[in-house]
């Protein structure tokens, strides 16, 4: 079984108890699990994950409830994905301190680019939490600057636009990966739009692993509280060693 896999689900969709149960299912096959702390206006997300944010907030998910849930999770590579505002308003110091208390491995904030990351990075460092770097196909001459400062892992965005399931990938990422490798050994995970074992296998050839989100979130949208067996089935397929090697 390969461990080169990151799965993503939204915290509190449909409830924090269920999120904990889903984490336990995904943990068996994941190297890292990303937990989306819902935000009212997730501008980097496509329809599927945006809808999950709406459901979670309707079910009264909050930052505090997410941390209470994470305190009871034993899986040691949890990464929180959220937007700048929930972190800033909670308080950078309080947020990263809670991350440390809950043994959170890293935090991804898509709308906190390199130029603005300092205000959060101070506290991420203080509480030993990785502030994960995103690199995009449009990063161009920024790639090396971004990669040099990366810790934990690098989230390489596969394609233009927002998260969501895609059938085609029209960009060649090998060149970006090469540029990153010139300056750092931090693992590279490719995300955005990966939903089938074939996609996953293709992307794994280029990078250290893949990130799959919308495909899991779609299952939860469909099966709600009864999603666990369906999540297990999908992650088994996506991490099938026969397709990887």
């Amino acid at each position: 079984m390969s461990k080169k896999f990151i799965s993503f689900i939204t915290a509190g969709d449909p409830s924090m108890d269920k999120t904990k149960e889903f984490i336990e299912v995904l943990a068996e096959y994941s190297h890292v699990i990303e937990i989306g702390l819902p935000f009212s206006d997730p501008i980097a997300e496509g329809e599927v994950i945006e809808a999950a944010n709406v459901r979670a907030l309707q079910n009264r998910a909050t930052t505090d409830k997410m941390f209470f849930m994470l305190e009871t999770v034993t899986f040691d590579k949890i990464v929180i994905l959220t937007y700048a505002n929930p972190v800033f308003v909670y308080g950078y110091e309080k947020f990263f301190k809670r991350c440390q208390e809950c043994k959170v491995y890293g935090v991804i904030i898509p709308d906190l680019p390199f130029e603005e990351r300092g205000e959060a990075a101070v506290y991420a460092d203080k509480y030993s939490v990785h502030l994960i770097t995103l690199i995009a196909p449009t990063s161009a001459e920024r790639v090396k600057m971004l990669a040099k400062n990366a810790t934990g892992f690098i989230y390489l965005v596969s394609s233009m636009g927002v998260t969501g399931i895609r059938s085609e990938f029209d960009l060649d990422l090998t060149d970006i990966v090469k540029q990153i490798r010139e300056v750092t050994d931090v693992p590279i995970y490719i995300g955005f739009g990966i939903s089938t074992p074939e996609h996953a296998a293709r992307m794994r050839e280029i990078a250290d692993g893949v990130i799959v989100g919308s495909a899991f979130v779609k299952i939860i949208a469909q099966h709600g509280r009864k999603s666990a067996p369906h999540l297990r089935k999908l992650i088994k397929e996506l991490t099938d060693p026969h397709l990887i090697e």
Partner: protein
Amino acid sequence: MSVRFGEFGGQYMPETLMNAVIELEKAYNYYKNDKGFTDELSGLLNNYAGRPSLLYSAENMTKDLGGAKIYLKREDLNHTGSHKINNVLGQALLAKKMGKTRLIAETGAGQHGVATATAAALFKMECEVFMGKEDIERQALNVYRMRLMGAKVHSVTSGTQTLKDAVNETMREWSKRIHDTHYVLGTVMGPHPFPTMVRDFQSVISREARAQILEYEGALPKAVIACVGGGSNAIGAFYHFIPDEGVELIGCEAAGLGADTPQNAATITNGSPGIFHGMKSLFCQDEYGQIAPVYSISAGLDYPGIGPEHADLHQKGRAKYVAITDTEAVEAFEYLSKMEGIIPAVESAHAVAYAMKAIKDYEGSIIITISGRGDKDVASIARYKGENLHE
């Protein structure tokens, strides 16, 4: 060019869009000092948009209310009927110089969408406008105007289906296609350089108004009053008066059903610092940083944030911000129509409403910016008053 206004502003954009905003910043820094560009823009403002706009002495109103002499800065007389064209012509011309062939924009009331569709038609560019489903219903006439000029209008059904969600969707669209597309942001918000660039394009309002009032009165006004949603007409009306310490600058935000009710969009009155839509500023939000659904009768003021320069002017005490309810705005809408034969946009009516309340406190003169004309609002105001009028 500074990225921030005091603690506010910044460039909080996803990495997918960082090179696009950096490219825009470089292009703007170059062209704003390029005589060819500034001459071409002045030409368009004068010969296409109809500038300079009038500074009209509202004598009936002055006589009726008693107090300072009231001047109206008539941005409603611009081509397309609002101040939005000032910014759009600037950005569309810049986009053209940058080699972009497609304009995308968000719109609330539809005024900015109409202005963008106009510029796209003029420059022969492709145009797509994102508008909340609820606003499409409130502003059907503007939707048709945009389509008439060749723009494609997308109905945004996510979230509150208003301006905030239209901005989300336009940002998502931009991240899908940046090589040929410029995002014409409609107000002084978003990531740097938008708040500065849009302010510069709108500052033509106060550049003209300051010269006009000195010519007519031989003195500066005691106050400049403008409505504030994101804040573009207000910053344009304030900008050249900021160094004039004796001139009070007053922004009128939308209190909806009341600033102390849940149904309002009064960001300075009720907001707190946050990071959203590319900027650090003040936002209506809950204790966990979830952006609050806001409400105003005016689709153009129905936004949960405010431009970062306003947040800074507020914090420094240089400008004052007041909240005006739907009821007060509708009264002012009717008052100006009857008193001067000028039907203001319901957005601008918020500024008129404050002047009506406060005019007795002032001597000398005051300027109210009429940011747009009210034709688009006639049907919805009639319905608000209980008349079953449909366009």
